[in-house]
C-alpha cells in the first residue's frame, strides 16, 4: 500500500481511538460502594467486588474471581447479612454470595433490566429497591421476585400529574409501618407500602434528590440538589419543614446528640458544614466554610462527626458545632460515605492509586494500610 494511502487511514484510526478513549467507551465510572461488617470491608468498584480483611489488609476473595468484568459494573454498596453478601450491578443483576465469595443462587436475579445505581435495602428478609428501569422491586432472599411496581402500575396508583421513575438512590424503611420512602432525581419522594405492595403517594420536592432519606423519630430527612433540607412527618406528610442551605446537598444528614450534621457544595471548590437543630432545622452553630465541596454524609465518632470532601480533605465537627480540618488528606477524591468501625474511619477513594484507606480517630491517615485500586 502506498504511503499516500496509509497516512489518511492512520490519521482516521488515531482520531477514532482518541474519541473512543476519551471516556473509555460507555463503561460507566463512578465512585465505589462500601459496606463494613465486622472485620471485613466489601467494596464494589467497576467490574469487581472485593472483600478486604481489615485486620491485615488481605483480600480473601474477589467477585468475579479471575478478573474484573468489563460489562458488569458494580458500584452499589454490597448488602451484608450474617451469611450472605448481595451485590447489584449496572446490567440490572443481583448476585448472592456466601461469605467466601461463592455465588449461591443458580442464576443472578435479572428481572430488573436497568442499572442498580444504589443498593437495595434489606427489610423483613427481603431486598427492596428501585432500579434504573423505573420499577420498584421486592426480591426474596432465594433470588426470586416477590412483587414489583413497574411504571405502568405506579402511574395507575398515583394521580396523573405525578411522574414516576429516575431512581438513583437507595430507599429507607420505616420499620414500624413497613412503608418505604424512595427519592428520585425527577423531583419526587414516593411512599411505598410493602404490605399492600403499592405506591401510596408521590410528593413534589421541586428538585432532584440523589441521596438516601433518613428516618429518625417519626420524620423523614433528606436534602436536594437545590439545597433544600426536608423534614417530613411519617404520619402526616403535610407536616413539612424545609430549610434551604444555599448549596447542593449530595449526601444524607447525620444525627448526633440532638442535632443534624450535614454538608453542602457551594461551588466548584467550596462547601459548607452545618450543625442544625433537629426541631426546626435552624442553625445550632455558625456554619463552617470548607476548602472543597462536602461530598459525603457525616460519620459519627464518639467525639464528633467527620465529613469527607471532594479533594480528599476531611473535617471533624465537635458537639459545639466547630469544624476542624484533619491534618491528613487522602490522595484522590472522596464521594463515598466513610464508615467508622473498630476505632478507625474507613474511606473508599475514587481516582487515586488506592481504593481503601483509614484514618485514626485523631485524623491521621495510616500509611501502612493501603488497598490498591488495581
Amino acid at each position, binding site marked *: 500500500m502506498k504511503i*499516500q*494511502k496509509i497516512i*489518511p*487511514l492512520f490519521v*482516521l*484510526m488515531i*482520531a*477514532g481511538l*482518541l*474519541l*473512543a478513549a*476519551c*471516556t473509555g*467507551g*460507555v463503561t*460507566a*465510572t*463512578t*465512585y465505589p460502594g462500601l459496606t463494613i461488617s465486622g472485620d471485613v470491608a466489601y467494596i464494589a468498584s467497576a467490574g469487581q467486588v472485593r472483600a478486604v480483611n481489615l485486620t491485615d489488609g488481605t483480600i480473601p476473595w474477589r467477585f468475579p474471581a479471575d478478573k474484573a468484568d468489563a460489562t458488569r459494573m458494580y*458500584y452499589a454498596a454490597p448488602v451484608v447479612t450474617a451469611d450472605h453478601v448481595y451485590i447489584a450491578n449496572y446490567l440490572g443483576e443481583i448476585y448472592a454470595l456466601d461469605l467466601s465469595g461463592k455465588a449461591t443462587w443458580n442464576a443472578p436475579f435479572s428481572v430488573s433490566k436497568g*442499572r442498580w*445505581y444504589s443498593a437495595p435495602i434489606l427489610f423483613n428478609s427481603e431486598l427492596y429497591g428501585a432500579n434504573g428501569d423505573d420499577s420498584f422491586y421486592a426480591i426474596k432472599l432465594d433470588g426470586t421476585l416477590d412483587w414489583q411496581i413497574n411504571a405502568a402500575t405506579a402511574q395507575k396508583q398515583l394521580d396523573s400529574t405525578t411522574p414516576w421513575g*429516575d431512581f*438513583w438512590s437507595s430507599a429507607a424503611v420505616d420499620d414500624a409501618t413497613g412503608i418505604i420512602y424512595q427519592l428520585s*432525581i*425527577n*423531583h419526587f419522594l414516593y411512599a411505598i407500602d410493602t404490605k399492600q405492595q403499592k405506591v401510596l403517594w408521590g410528593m413534589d420536592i*421541586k*428538585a*432532584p434528590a*440523589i441521596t438516601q432519606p433518613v428516618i429518625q423519630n417519626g420524620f423523614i430527612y433528606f436534602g436536594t*440538589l*437545590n439545597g433544600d433540607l426536608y423534614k417530613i412527618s411519617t404520619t402526616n406528610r403535610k407536616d413539612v419543614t424545609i430549610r434551604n442551605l444555599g448549596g*447542593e446537598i*449530595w449526601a444524607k444528614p447525620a444525627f448526633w446528640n440532638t442535632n443534624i450534621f450535614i454538608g453542602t*457544595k457551594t461551588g*466548584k471548590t467550596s462547601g459548607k458544614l452545618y450543625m442544625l437543630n433537629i426541631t426546626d432545622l435552624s442553625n445550632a452553630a455558625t456554619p463552617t466554610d470548607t476548602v472543597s465541596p462536602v*461530598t459525603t454524609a457525616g460519620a459519627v465518632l464518639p467525639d464528633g462527626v467527620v465529613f469527607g470532601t471532594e479533594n480528599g480533605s476531611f473535617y471533624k465537627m465537635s458537639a459545639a458545632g466547630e469544624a476542624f480540618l484533619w491534618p491528613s488528606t487522602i490522595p484522590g477524591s472522596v*464521594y463515598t460515605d466513610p464508615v467508622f468501625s473498630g476505632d478507625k474511619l474507613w474511606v473508599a477513594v*475514587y481516582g487515586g492509586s488506592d481504593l481503601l484507606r483509614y484514618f485514626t480517630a485523631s485524623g491521621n491517615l495510616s500509611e501502612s494500610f493501603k488497598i490498591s485500586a488495581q
Partner: protein
Amino acid sequence: MWDAIIITPFLNILLGIYHVIGNNFGIAIILFTLVIRLVTQPLTAKQIKSTAAMQSLQSDKRWIDIQAKYKGDKEKLASEQMKLYKEMGVSPFASCLPTLIQFPIIIALYQTLILGLANNPLDLYKLTGHVWPTLFGKIPYLNLSTILPINHQFLWMDLGAPERVFIPGISFGIPILAIIVVVTTYLQQKLMTPPKTGPKDQSSQMMGMMNIYMPLIMGWIALSLQAGLALYFVASNLIGILQYAILGKVHWRNLLPKSMRKDVIDAKLTNSGNGRNKSSEKENKPGELTAKK
C-alpha cells in the same frame, strides 16, 4: 483551561438549547450541531475554496508537465511544485488546516455530549459543577431543578447508551443508528469529492481512500459509544451536505454508477489519450535531454 474555555461554554449552550426546546436532548444535539456548523462555516468555505484551487492546479498543464518531467527526481519535483504553488497563490496546507482546526472542536463536542448525558452519579456531580446558574453573574440562566433529570430518550433511542433495535426472532440488536452513520458519512464524502482531474490526481486518490475508511471508522465509533454521539454524527453529516449544497459544491453525479458518469467516461478517454501522450513523451525525451545539455 480546555475545560473552562471550551467544554463549559459548549455544555451551557447545549443545555440552554435543551431547556428552551422543552427538555429534548435529541433535538438539542441536532440544533447544537447546526450552531457549531454555522460558526465554523467560514472554515468550511475556506476549505472548499482551497480544495477547488488545488483541483484546478492539478489539472493545469504546467503541473502535469512538471509531474512528467521530474518523475524520477522527487527533490526537484517538490521544489518545482512549491514554485508553482507560489506562482498560483495556492497553499497545499490550506485545504487541510480547516479540517485540523475542526478536529479539536469534534473532540470538545464529544466530551460535552458525554458530560451532558450524565448517566451515573459522578457524571451528574461533574455536570452540576459546569452549569452556569447566571450569565455574567447577573442574568439568570440555567437552574438545576429545571434541567435535571436529563431526558435521554429520543425517538426509539436512549442517547446515553449504544443504540440497538431488538426485533422479535433475532437474538442480537440491530445498530440502526450506526448504519445510518455509515451511510450518511459515505454520502457526505461522496457528494463532496470533486471529480477526478486526471488519472494521477493525488487528492482524488486520497479522497477515494477516505470514502472507504471514514464511514467505517465513524460507524465503529457509533456502534461502540453513546447514541447521543452517533446522533451528532448523523446531524453533522446531513447539515454538512446541506451547507455544501447551498454553496453549490455538491457533486450529485458522484452518486451515479460509474458507467453513467460523464467525468469517468471522459477520464477514460483522456487516459487512453495519455497513453498516446506517454509514447510521444518518450519520443520527446531525448530531445529534452539534449536541450538540458
